[in-house]
């Protein structure tokens, strides 16, 4: 139980895939102009990361070492196809809005990263938890960025109007540059916070 907590703390905060390891930002930025899109993308990624980590860990002792990358990619693509078909069947509008970015979950470095760094060495259950934690960390950052972008860009949150009609939308928030700036700000903030914590640890050790 303690290990599970530890994994969640690492995945969500200290080793957060986006600002801790700078992984998977390709898709982190593209879908963040609306909160709903980010949420769906995040859920899809949690599903794929968790289950592919689980599967990879399950067959890790049978996979020949030199073709393991190929095997991993195939497992990941199989789960991404499930997500794609599911979205097409039940949420066709969402599937259109996300466009190619659902397919691009395959090349999202987070999944491969977790598979290589964690699922190769750990038991299936723990790998599943680790996948969920990393996915949640990613979703959290997506939601943070899209919160600002949707609020200032459209004056809405999850499609509900927040600001009155007098509000002038910030056009720049809808455009790509804003995503870069916001992600940089988040990384900056997180770095300051994590550095302080490390310094405090060093001081208490000394």
């Amino acid at each position, binding site marked *: 139980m303690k290990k599970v907590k530890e994994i969640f703390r690492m995945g969500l905060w200290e080793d957060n895939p986006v600002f801790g390891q*700078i*992984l*998977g*930002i*390709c*898709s*982190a*930025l*593209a879908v963040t102009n609306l909160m709903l899109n980010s949420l769906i993308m995040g859920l899809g990624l949690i599903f794929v990361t968790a289950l592919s980590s689980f599967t990879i860990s399950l067959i890790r002792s049978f996979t020949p070492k030199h073709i393991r990358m*190929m095997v991993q*990619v*195939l497992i990941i*693509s*199989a789960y*991404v*196809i499930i997500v*794609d*078909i599911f979205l097409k069947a039940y949420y066709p509008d969402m599937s259109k809005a996300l*466009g*190619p970015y659902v*397919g*691009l979950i*395959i*090349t*999202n*470095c987070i999944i*491969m990263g977790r598979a290589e760094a964690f699922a190769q060495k750990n038991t299936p259950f723990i790998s599943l938890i680790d996948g969920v934690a990393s996915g949640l960390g990613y979703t959290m950052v997506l939601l943070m960025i899209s919160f600002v972008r949707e609020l200032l860009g459209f004056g809405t949150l999850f499609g509900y109007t927040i600001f009155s009609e007098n509000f002038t939308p910030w056009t*720049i928030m809808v*455009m*790509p*540059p*804003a*995503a*870069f*700036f916001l*992600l*940089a700000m988040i*990384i*900056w*903030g*997180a*770095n*300051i916070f994590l*550095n302080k914590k490390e310094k405090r640890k060093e001081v208490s050790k000394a």
Partner: protein
Amino acid sequence: MIELNPFVIFIAAIFTNNMILSNFLGMCSFIAVSKEIPTALGLGQAVTVVLGFTSIINYFIYQKILEPLGLEYLRFIVFIVSIAAFVQLLEMVLEKYLPNLYYSLGIFLPLITVNCAILGVSLFMIIRNYNFMQTVGFSIGSGLGWTLAITALAGIRQKIKNAPVPEGLKGPGITLIITGIMALAFVGFSGIVQIQ
């Protein structure tokens, strides 16, 4: 849908719909391999070559095999396998016949398999229903646009190497801000042509 001239798509893919700056594709290697101009240029060339070939291969696979058989939903797996296979093949051919080029591009080739831009271009061309010539224009334009962006970024990063950047922003943080400013500059091109 209006038939777009392949050349218009080519220009648009370089400037207004730049892979990195407006579609956020290929960010991972964009941040990691943009410290120096020569390496950035090398990676850019490799990406352009691979993009040009794989999107044409994927175009034929999709039009001639997957669509007639009704297997469109398998496209992710098929595309990623064909990209990986092509990169592997290119690596072997280069090693055998053009060893010089192999040594300058070699280290980048494995990186390219997982570059989101390659798969992204193949998926975009399907979603936007491009015909063959449009696909060629789009893929080569995207590759050149990617090269342009990464080389420009590497140039800026070399300039600011000794600049006093705040502690927490060092590395990826400041790179993202530079990219943001570049994206802002590229928004200025948006009047030329627009594809969506």
